[in-house]
């Protein structure tokens, strides 16, 4: 039986008349990276604050690592790590001292602390710069250090609130690789909030989509695609005139057709062989350069869910 790291039952939190989290019902199995996706102000950070016991729910309840978030907050925080909205580093202090402090907070012995600090700084490529104060570091390096801090005491569960936000592509990819490697090696459960779909798709075994505090969907990225995605075909080329579009729309297996620049997107009602459609277009004068049967990206699934919710 899979162990459950996080369980919420109709978890809600209001701020005045605003429902920041609204009846959240979900389970996060242990040992996976769980993606919690949503646009800005959708309730992701509030959910983390509720799960860490930093905020009391207005109604409903949640269990984290088997502990109640209302009454056993200390037990939860003892076993969890967190990288919240900001890196939260003491910028005038050195990288080593930042980790040293949190090692003391988590009551790690001196020898264990030193070994773990060295291991993590080396893993993230920061060991050579451990004595520098972090204020002049790049955002990517700070995020790596903050991630190292969250993992310092070998927590069972780590909350990462948009860890790659604001990083350039290279820094984000590097942090993602480090994170994936480390979490796999240490078997830690990761609750990852992000609005970066590529990140979620690459890292997460399960994803949940939240909007305006309400959970829209939970599942493996492929399951979400199956739920929300109809098969489609992307055609690159020229000659996509109204006559061609009319011919395609008249076909019973086609549900929608859209042209953007030199790309034609055909939504199908069901999986099918697309050769007859390509023949139709060629015979109508379309110059076809490329045909690709589409599998929607997680981003498209996300946008579809957002659209449906509206």
């Amino acid at each position: 039986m899979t162990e459950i790291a996080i369980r919420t039952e109709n978890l809600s939190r209001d701020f005045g008349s605003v429902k920041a989290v609204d009846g959240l019902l979900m389970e996060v199995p242990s040992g996976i990276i769980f993606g919690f996706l949503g646009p800005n102000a959708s309730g992701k950070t509030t959910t983390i604050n509720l799960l860490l016991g930093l905020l009391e729910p207005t109604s409903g309840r949640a269990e984290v690592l088997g502990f109640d978030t209302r009454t056993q907050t200390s037990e939860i925080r003892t076993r969890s790590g967190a990288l919240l909205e900001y890196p939260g580093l003491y910028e005038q202090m050195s990288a080593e001292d930042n980790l040293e402090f949190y090692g003391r907070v988590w009551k790690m012995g001196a020898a264990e602390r030193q070994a773990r600090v060295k291991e993590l700084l080396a893993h993230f490529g920061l060991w050579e710069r451990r004595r520098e104060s972090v204020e002049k570091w790049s955002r990517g390096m700070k995020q790596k250090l903050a991630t190292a801090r969250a993992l310092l005491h070998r927590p069972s569960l780590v909350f990462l609130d948009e860890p790659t936000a604001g990083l350039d592509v290279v820094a984000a990819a590097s942090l993602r690789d480090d994170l994936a490697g480390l979490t796999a090696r240490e078997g830690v459960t990761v609750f990852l909030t992000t609005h970066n779909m590529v990140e979620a798709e690459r890292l997460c075994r399960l994803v949940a989509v939240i909007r305006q505090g309400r959970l829209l969907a939970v599942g493996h990225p492929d399951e979400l695609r199956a739920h929300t995605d109809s098969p489609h075909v992307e055609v690159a080329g020229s000659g996509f005139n109204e006559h061609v579009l009319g011919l395609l729309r008249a076909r019973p297996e086609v549900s929608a057709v859209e042209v953007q620049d030199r790309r034609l997107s055909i939504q199908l009602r069901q999986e099918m062989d697309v050769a007859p459609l390509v023949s139709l277009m060629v015979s109508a004068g379309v110059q076809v350069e490329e045909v690709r049967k589409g599998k929607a990206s997680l981003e498209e699934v996300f946008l579809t869910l957002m659209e449906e919710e509206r």
Partner: protein
Amino acid sequence: MIGDMLSVIWKERKSLFVSRGSRMRALWNLLIPLVLVAIWFPLAQGPDWVTSPVALIALMIPTLLVSTTIPDSFAGERERHTLSTLLASRLPDRAVLFGKLAVAVGYGWLVTIVAILLALLTVNAAHWQGHVLLYSPAIVVADVVLSFLLAVFVAGVGILISLRSASVQSAQQLLVTILLIPPLVLGVIFSVFHKQIGNALGGIDFMQAVLIAMGVLIAADVVLALAIMARFQRARLILG
């Protein structure tokens, strides 16, 4: 709890003194009050320094130092976005609160003690009487005990202000403004009613006045301690 407080004290000490930028700032903050209390006033007062109430000028040290360190420690954590990470850790609220308080109060108090000892050296070196000049008991009690109680008082007011301030600067400005009010009000009252006050307090000697001040500060410190313990709670801090 003590172990957790020591962790916070370790970090606060690093932030305050050990980090390069902080060390220079802390030295500059120390320089003027130390020069005034340890050198200028003892030289100006001469041997009277060890018995005169002027020696209470040392009480400005905890006021000045604590009023700069507390906003930096509390409002600064929020301004620099380190507070939420700290609150997401296993540290109990009280360990964070009292660890920070201990460093600020300890710093202000210890510097005061060092300053009055240096002042004693200065006055003995500059006005040697053939024997070592020592402070009168009333001055010792006043400087040592009142400086501690005053440091706690300033810290308490500073914490309450800092928890409601968005930035270190606004917290420091408001704290200094508030700390200036009591001396100004007392000054106005004394200048208007000096005869009546003189008659009423005529029978009170310096030591008794010090004890009264201690009683008032202890009461104020207890009230402030209760207020900050009620206010310094994770949920309230997270919501700002």
